[in-house]
């Protein structure tokens, strides 16, 4: 039974009651049609819709939109939102949600700036303290929700006030910027700066890993008739062609060259999360707990413990987002991350339609978050009057997602 809403986002509510199962094709259909009907392909309609939108922007705005540096800068600046999206996603996968992540990020922004400059702590220690604060926050949330059974909304709204309040108490309600003589360590501000780039080798390793991962992921798409060996060869071919196209059409080497530390951190965190979700028992337990709590319990999953861990992981990711926000801002303004909450949730929910059919995914969250930013950025570059951007953004978001919903209905 497909439930909607925050809990399980599989969209088709109407058919839910009477159509229990995706039917396996009984008679052999033409291989291509069969391929197109696969959920992986169906799940990419929204992705394709966005790509077409950006192509449209490209035609309209030319190089002022299709500009690697500018678009990477957009990504760079939105890294805290993307990480918050991941923080939100973890708890959503577990069937809960967490409204306190943005406040946690605000808190660690203050802590990282304050401890490093005002209190002059060495930076490693600051980082450890911030992440520990993230762990503590996650434990509080997990304890309230899982052990005490407090309504998730109230609990995380309450702790959200607690965290943001703590940041204000720490700074006496003012903004914090390093005083002269108490500058932040340069490597910290460098990490937050777009002009400082990590060694290209790091990024190339990431590309190589992505290629390998894509190769591995493609295994699932094996056409039924194909034998394993020939599909392996085909997969190598596909990955190579994609890399080639990216290199020629999108100037992959330049992209790799221009990635900032924050972007690299996002990719690394994303990869870690992806591995956690797909290749460890924890990811499996979490998905089971989110999909059917009772069944997971009966199957021997320690649901409470796993969901608490999800809150902790969310807290740590939010704390990291806050530290990176501090690094890129160089100072902390009151409630600085408050505005990131809805975009972070939007990114996580977009992941259920970008690259997926109803599941929350790591890469979908990151890419969904980036797409939202680019969509509105294109409007701004195009000089659309500011009062119209909200309207257009809303329509684009809904339309891109409605497409995939329509696709699904068509099939049903």
């Amino acid at each position, binding site marked *: *039974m497909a439930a909607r809403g925050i809990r399980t986002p599989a969209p088709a509510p109407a058919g839910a009651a*009477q159509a229990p199962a995706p*039917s396996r094709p009984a008679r052999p259909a033409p291989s291509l049609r069969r391929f197109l009907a696969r959920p992986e392909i169906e799940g990419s309609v929204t992705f394709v819709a966005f790509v077409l939108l950006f192509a449209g922007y490209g035609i309209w705005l030319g190089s002022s939109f299709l500009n690697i540096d500018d678009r990477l800068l957009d990504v760079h600046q939105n890294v805290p939102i993307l990480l918050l999206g991941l923080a939100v996603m973890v708890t959503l996968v577990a069937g809960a949600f967490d409204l306190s992540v943005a406040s946690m990020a605000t808190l660690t922004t203050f802590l990282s700036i304050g401890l490093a400059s005002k209190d002059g702590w060495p930076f490693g220690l600051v980082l450890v303290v911030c992440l520990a604060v993230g762990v503590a926050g996650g434990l509080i949330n997990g304890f309230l929700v899982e052990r005490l059974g407090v309504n998730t909304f109230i609990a995380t709204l309450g702790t959200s006030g607690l965290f943001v309040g703590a940041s204000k108490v720490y700074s006496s309600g003012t903004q914090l910027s390093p005083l002269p003589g108490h500058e932040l360590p340069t490597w910290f501000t460098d990490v937050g700066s777009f002009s400082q780039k990590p060694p290209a080798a790091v990024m190339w390793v990431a590309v190589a890993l992505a290629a390998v991962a894509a190769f591995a992921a493609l295994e699932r798409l094996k056409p039924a008739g194909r034998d394993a060996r020939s599909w392996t060869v085909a997969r190598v071919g596909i990955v190579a062609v994609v890399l080639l196209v990216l290199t020629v059409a999108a100037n992959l080497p330049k992209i790799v060259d221009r990635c900032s530390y924050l972007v690299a951190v996002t990719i690394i965190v994303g990869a870690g999360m992806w*591995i956690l979700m797909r290749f460890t*028992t*924890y990811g499996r337990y979490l*998905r089971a707990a989110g999909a*059917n709590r*009772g069944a997971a319990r009966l199957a*021997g999953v320690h649901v409470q413990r796993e969901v608490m861990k999800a809150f902790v992981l969310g807290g740590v990711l939010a704390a990291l987002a806050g530290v990176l926000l501090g690094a890129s801002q160089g100072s902390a303004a009151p409630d600085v991350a408050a505005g990131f909450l809805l975009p972070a949730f939007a990114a996580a929910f977009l992941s259920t339609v970008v690259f997926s059919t109803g599941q929350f995914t790591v890469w979908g969250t990151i890419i969904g978050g980036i797409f939202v930013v680019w969509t509105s950025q294109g409007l701004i570059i195009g000089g659309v009057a500011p009062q119209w951007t909200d309207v257009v953004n809303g329509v684009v978001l809904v339309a891109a997602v409605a497409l995939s919903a329509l696709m699904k209905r068509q099939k049903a």
Partner: protein
Amino acid sequence: MTQSIAPAPPLNIRGLTKTFGSTTVLHGVDLHIGPGEFVGLMGPNGAGKSTLIKILDGVHTASGGTIRVGDETVSSLGGRSDVGFIHQDLGLVESMSVLDNLRLGERPLRTFGPLLDHRAERAAALAALERVGLTWAVDELVAALAPGEQALVAIARAFGRGARILFVDEATSTLPVADAARVIAALRENAAQGATIVMVTHKLHEILDATHRVVVLLDGRLAADQVTAGMDRAALVDLLLQHEAAKVERVPRGADTTAGRDGAAPVLEISGAFAGRAGPVDLVLRRGEVLGLTGLPGSGLHDIAFLAHGSLRPARGTVRRGDGVRVAIVPPHRETQGGFDHLSVHENITLSSLGNWTTKLRLLALGREKRDSAEMVERLNVQPPGIDTPFGVLSGGNKQKVIFGRALLQRPAVYVLCEPTRGVDVGTRSEIYRLIEELRDTDAAVLVVTSDSEDLFAVCDAVAVVEDGRLSESRPIEHMQPADLEVMV
């Protein structure tokens, strides 16, 4: 399927008591189960069977009594690798693959660090599935499997973990005959290899076919404990009904029923309809007629039921209902499609017929509504009888009664009853048969969609069989023998 199972330790339950609030559900149950025994656990709805098993699993904590495995006193058997549990809802995560489900809660097989070894996991899963003959399904989503196959996955999972004692709570009640037979066969096979099995069921033949011993719970007390060998159906029924007034018997019907109903106007006509997996479907239902539909799982049997009810629209063909004809349904999967756990029994039972209690101001006459639902609850002998009880706490069979009551309150011209006796005790079963007879007498048309051949013989005038979505001609029940159906189904 040749692995043999190391003999299980004996299981000793003494004085097991359970109270919920101030309700006592189990009154000091004593039970000894030896290694390699196949025990059937029976008793009316709400007797405490599921509660007993949930205590053993650690879902509930006993209010009193001891549980001993071998020489060890334990508070529950949950979490032990040598004990497996399969509850009424199988405990599978439908949106995950069979492989994922088999690995849930297992010691992880890893390559390096925390990374999972997919090859080893697959091999282990295949080994477990082999025991129940389901190796082909390893990568399928559980949701895509037939219900019987899902039950087999649950069994495979239990034994795959090295279970030597297995508790099965009504795993077959939702299964069609053939699937149920597969599950029973798998269980019997494992029992033969040394596993201890305790199975809750309401199906008499399963007890007679498979078990060594039958234990009967009545009102939370142990009422009987006998060896099955040599027992026949009648003896078992006697055992079950020793405290009950009702007797299961075919309600005798006048010979003229057939003649009368052919003349009546059709209230529901389906012609050339396709929907879901069903089609083409041609069917005519008249007042005063009880038509049985039966078929294999995946045959589209229930799709036809939904088609007749109107909750599924035909992709092709037509479904015609007479003027002002209302159709009520008792859905096949009561746990998911039936009721509303957090709403009260009263709200559950009146939901479909709220129009009956609407006043001129379009407000609900709550008093009248409650009185009528209390009456229905009493008539169906729902236990416990309070109409403000949340639906979710009712035992399986009592939920079924409430859903049945909801259909009755609608007073429709057509009843679509899917698996009307699924999971209900022997006494209630005959009560339900009596009710269906009554409906016929009040000139309603009844479509009984069932995989239980007893339903067909007990109440149906005619029976049609669904095969691959196609509906056969209906044949009068008088001309059929159980063997006929077994051939067809």
